[in-house]
């Protein structure tokens, strides 16, 4: 039932204090005054409580169980992060600078920590999400080339066909032409293919490393050199940073612009789709183009620097998703340098353990040592059994597990992309393997059973096709 159907005219869930301000009368011209009240719910407080509590029960979450969505890094979100963010909720972004000393210090410390983690020299914390960071990074690249007089000729951004969809979309928004290059047979960037497209018309190469197949781009130092030799910049998509912490840094590999997903690697929860946070770190020569304000140390104090004449401007209001920054900061203090390395070690261990266990039943797309995630290729499985990746995913829901990412990356047909993260125990991984093996068996013995899944969820399989063909955008009486 929707909240609108619970509604009864005249019922209410709020109470305002007694009001003793004299009525000044309303002078708004008649035609600008609202005639019909908006159809908002009229419900009591307990109605509201039950409605949203019941909705919450219809959600799967990390706190309920295993959530192996590839490329999404659904790790456990420590509770202290939430509490610490709550300490900063009452600040107005325009209150005088001297009254937000602690907040500015926090942003300053956090920036230094994230620069250390990424191997970059300066950073903006402003972008609200990964894709927002991508746009910011590409606008920085654009401003840089404009400044050195090369924007006219450098119109291209190269992205591999395995890249996240946000990469090409962000490049297009930043006014670049997108060149998609095919991955090599080993799942990595094909150097010959790259060479074909790489010249001084290229502004940026965007890479994820490890890439979306969970494989480390082992030729990265060569790729960086190739990019820099033609004067292009190398952009790091940080979605997969969880695999390499404490061992290597994007900046050290030659990346010039690096984005982070604080809601992934740094455990600030994803909140059903956001708020995220996508800080962008850059090498020193790109620092003048960062969006304002930039938090910088000046003497012993941190200051908000608005004086960047070459800045791209602002990409959102104020300081970004500040409370998300507090959560990431709390997490880094909790884990420390060694803890972050342990995170990556265990994330990679878990992924490889799952890969090996599942390889006995399923075809792994690139069956070699992987990083924090890997991809199953169900093409043959589907041909043989008629059971597609989508069906397996839906059947997993019946086993009380969330499904992995499916049909991504696009270069693997019937793909299933699995990222266990470091916070899952061996027992949990074994349970997942058992469920996958049982489904494989079901697919052979009784494919209709799998194709009809799920059976135990709040709703059965939903009709996406007619939902888009005859869209219902809102509740109507």
């Amino acid at each position, binding site marked *: 039932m929707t909240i609108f159907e619970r509604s009864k005219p005249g019922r209410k869930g709020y109470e305002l204090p007694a009001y003793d301000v004299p009525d000044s009368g309303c002078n708004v*011209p008649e035609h600008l005054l609202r005639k019909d009240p908006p159809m908002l719910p009229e419900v009591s407080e307990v109605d509201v409580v039950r409605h949203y509590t019941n909705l919450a029960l219809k959600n799967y979450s990390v706190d309920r169980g295993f959530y192996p969505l590839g490329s999404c890094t659904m790790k456990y979100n420590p509770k202290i992060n939430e509490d610490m963010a709550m300490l900063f909720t009452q600040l107005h972004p325009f209150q005088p600078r001297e009254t937000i000393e602690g907040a500015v210090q926090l942003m300053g410390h956090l920036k230094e920590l994230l620069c250390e983690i990424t191997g970059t020299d300066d950073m903006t914390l402003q972008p609200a999400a990964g894709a927002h960071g991508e746009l910011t990074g590409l606008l920085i690249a654009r401003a840089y080339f404009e400044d050195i007089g090369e924007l006219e000729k450098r119109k291209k951004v190269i992205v591999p066909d395995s890249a996240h969809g946000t990469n090409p979309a962000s490049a297009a928004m930043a006014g670049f032409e997108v060149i998609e290059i095919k991955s090599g047979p080993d799942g990595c960037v094909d150097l010959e293919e790259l060479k074909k497209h790489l010249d001084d018309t290229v502004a940026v190469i965007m890479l994820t490393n490890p890439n979306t197949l969970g494989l480390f781009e082992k030729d990265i130092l060569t790729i960086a050199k190739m990019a820099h030799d033609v004067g292009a910049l190398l952009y790091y998509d940080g979605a997969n940073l969880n695999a390499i912490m404490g061992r290597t840094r994007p900046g050290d590999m030659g990346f010039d612009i690096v984005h982070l997903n604080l809601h992934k690697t740094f455990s600030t929860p994803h909140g059903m789709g956001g708020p995220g946070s996508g800080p962008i770190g850059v090498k020193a020569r790109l620092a003048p183009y960062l969006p304002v304000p930039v938090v910088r140390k000046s003497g012993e104090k941190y200051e908000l620097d608005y004086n960047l004449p070459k800045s791209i401007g602002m990409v959102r209001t104020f300081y970004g998703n500040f409370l998300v920054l507090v959560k990431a900061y709390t997490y880094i203090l909790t884990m420390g340098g060694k803890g972050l390395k342990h995170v990556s070690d265990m994330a990679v261990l878990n992924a490889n353990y799952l890969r090996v266990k599942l390889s006995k039943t399923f075809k792994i797309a690139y069956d070699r040592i992987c990083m924090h995630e890997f991809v199953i290729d169900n093409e043959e499985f589907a041909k043989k059994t008629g059971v597609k990746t989508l069906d397996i995913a839906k059947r997993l829901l019946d086993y009380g597990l969330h499904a992995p990412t499916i049909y991504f990356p696009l270069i693997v047909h019937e793909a299933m992309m699995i990222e266990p993260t470091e916070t899952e125990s061996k027992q949990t991984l074994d349970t997942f393997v058992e469920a996958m093996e049982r489904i494989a068996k079901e697919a052979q013995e009784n494919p209709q059973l799998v194709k009809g899944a799920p059976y135990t969820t709040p709703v059965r399989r939903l009709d996406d096709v007619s939902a888009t063909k005859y869209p219902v955008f809102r509740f109507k009486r």
Partner: protein
Amino acid sequence: MHRYIPHTEEEIKEMLQEIGVGSIDDLFIDVPKTIDGYNIPDGKDEFTVRKLVEELARKNKTFEPEFVFLGAGIYYHYIPTVVKHLAANPNFVTAYTPYQAEVSQGTLQMLFEYQTMMCELTGMEVANSSMYDGASSFAESLLMATRITGKYKMLVARTINPEYRTVARTYTKPIGIKIEELGYTELGTVNLDELKAKLDDETAAVAVAYPNFFGFIEDLKAIRSLIPQNVVFIVVAEPVSLALLEAPGKFGADIVIGEGQSLGVTPNLGGPGIGFFTTLEKHVRKMPGRLIGQTKDLEGKIGYVMILQTREQHIRREKATSNICSNQAYIALINAIYLSVMGPQGLREVAYRSYNNAHYLAKKLEEAGFAKIFSGEFFNEFVVRVPDDYRNRWHEMAKNGILGPIPIDRVYKELGPSALVCATEVNTKESMDKLVEVMKK
């Protein structure tokens, strides 16, 4: 061992054996080792972390809500306790984007209801399930106007939040959008003669704010009557005001966007907030962001799914209507809970009290010698003339627990010494009288 990472030494050994490697390092053979750990101190126990962060929090000054007279896009409103409690449910907080609809009906139904509520407030037909903030919504509305019209000239009122205009310039410059500003009159609202003069065949959109940055209520009817139907009419609206003011949809708006922070979200130093984004069905395929729609499951039961994803980046890649992926869904939840609790009547009372408080305060300030700069009709904010040294006094007031009206003459230089005064339902007669007294000194 770490409290968030469950592996025992024994298990690590077993797992390495299963994989067939001798050590963890063997899993990183492809990775060039450029560092040996980070130059970051070791991790700390929870007690110590708490103390460190609390110490930083103490270095900030927070204000009693009734002594906040600063708005300018972020507003203090009373937030019923139930909002925080319901929103803290971990099944909302720790869920991901609803990629598996059957186990995400909580998220999906909530967003569908949120979309409905935003349509109701704005008088529009479709709402997306959120953007980053008011500024990014505004920027994306201009990009959308270009997609609709194929034209690149935007007429943007100077009375739209200056930060929104700044962000919009950042977003729109690469694709060649030209933004021309529209000035304002002594009423504090957009100059209609200038609008008439600047409108031409190249114009993609006209954008105004309602109420605008100065708090003044634009006459949307008069503005729309000057704009040809094929020019996109964008309204940046303050959502609380829409319980009192006629919905922009009633005046022929094509896109209504804004910042949703005032609907139950704490100020959060400006983030997270939420950008809302609404439009008409005829424009929906040009719209950025994620949409949730109603459908049925195979047994005919009503359910909700993400729809029209063929516009989105994960399918359309560089041809997508926008690059947005993660949005502000959790804040949409807070908006939805707040609007459910307040209902139409509660929200109207909040809006009317904000309006009335601002008008009471304006009168008192005027009596105390702070003249209103504009003479039009305003909602919960207005601009007053202040002495040359007001900025110092503003800092002084903050020291004494009053977050006073913000000086705006650095951004609107043409106004001379001036401050933007804000009142909402949280201010009391007592706190407003006190402000007047303190400002007089």
